[in-house]
């Protein structure tokens, strides 16, 4: 299966690879994975507490080209957005931008999960600032 030019571009020149101090209150960390393919993705955001704007984002992903490109793109997109705007990013936007084939859609889902997880972590750390802690989703019993 051929990767699109955009995936290859992100894969060869990933943006914002790296890490931030996960103990800092300004930093939210999302670590997500998919057991089917064994991919793991860590996405971190640094949020300005006054403006709630995401000022920086870093990622590190172990996985296929599409997973790396999806998370690279996700860090580019969240930067400069407020946390609420960033929550609007949908995996389908990533699929469209990167022209991901159906078998690679789960990579974009992982990136969306990572954004949510990072923002959730930041909110949890900043409950004192009047943020609501992320409510964990109960696992459906049925």
């Amino acid at each position, binding site marked *: 299966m051929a990767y699109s030019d955009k995936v290859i571009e992100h894969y060869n020149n990933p943006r914002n690879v790296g890490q931030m101090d996960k103990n800092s209150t300004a930093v939210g960390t999302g670590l997500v994975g998919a057991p089917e393919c064994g991919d793991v993705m860590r996405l971190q955001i640094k949020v300005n507490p006054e403006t709630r704007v995401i000022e920086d984002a870093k990622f590190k992903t172990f996985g296929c080209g599409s997973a790396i490109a999806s998370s690279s793109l996700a860090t580019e997109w969240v930067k400069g957005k407020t946390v609420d705007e960033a929550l609007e990013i949908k995996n389908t936007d990533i699929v469209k931008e990167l022209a991901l084939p159906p078998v690679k859609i789960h990579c974009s889902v992982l990136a969306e*999960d990572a954004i949510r997880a990072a923002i*959730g972590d930041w909110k949890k750390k900043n409950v004192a600032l009047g943020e609501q802690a992320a409510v964990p989703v109960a696992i459906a019993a049925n």
Partner: protein
Amino acid sequence: MTVVAEPSKKLVCWSCGSDNDADAQFCATCGKLQPYTPTDYFSFFGLPRRFVLDRVALEKQFYQLSRKLHPDLYVRAGAQEQQWSLEKSSVLNDAWRTLREPLARTEYLLSLLGIRLEEQSRDASDRAAASGTVKQQVVPSDLLEEVFELNMQLEEMRMAKAGGADDPELRRDLEAARENFYQQLKVSEQDLQRLWAEWDSSADNEATRQTTQEKMVDLLNRRSYIRNLLRDVEEALKS
């Protein structure tokens, strides 16, 4: 995969008209081969749905059935019986391959119970997106951390090797990690065996069954991560 309900109906022999068990392969009265109706692998062998299964007995039954169902025996029979023997022989092989392996059997029985392992993660993502909350990861976060850290080490190892050097300290770390993961696989196997027995013996307790099923899914997800990691560790340690 289609989920097939456990059969309860009787089967009337097409040849002599007498009553048989719904999952009978042959008429108990006249011995004629019965029509092929799609069924799950447990019913095909006339077995109850259980995680624990006597492999020796199953093997014996498999060989007996394969002799009796073999298409060669039906070359002089009617076209329909020829067709049934073909179909049944093919299902027999699939059923045997699936049921003889404990893990394949586990995944199969879970799928009959409506649990599709590959879709667990996607379903959790959908629920999170729909409710606007953080996704409940299908593997515990401590394992994700472990997986992440190990991948960092694997990357270092690959880079060291690409530079023509082998880092003995890193190698030792990876060997220790490999040992640790093999140990975890072993432990999870024992945990699975306990859960199988627990589920099998709680036919009258739906709540217990649900809990044990969920625990099995957790363990299987964990195992699939560990197996992928082990493959990568083995690859990196090869020199």
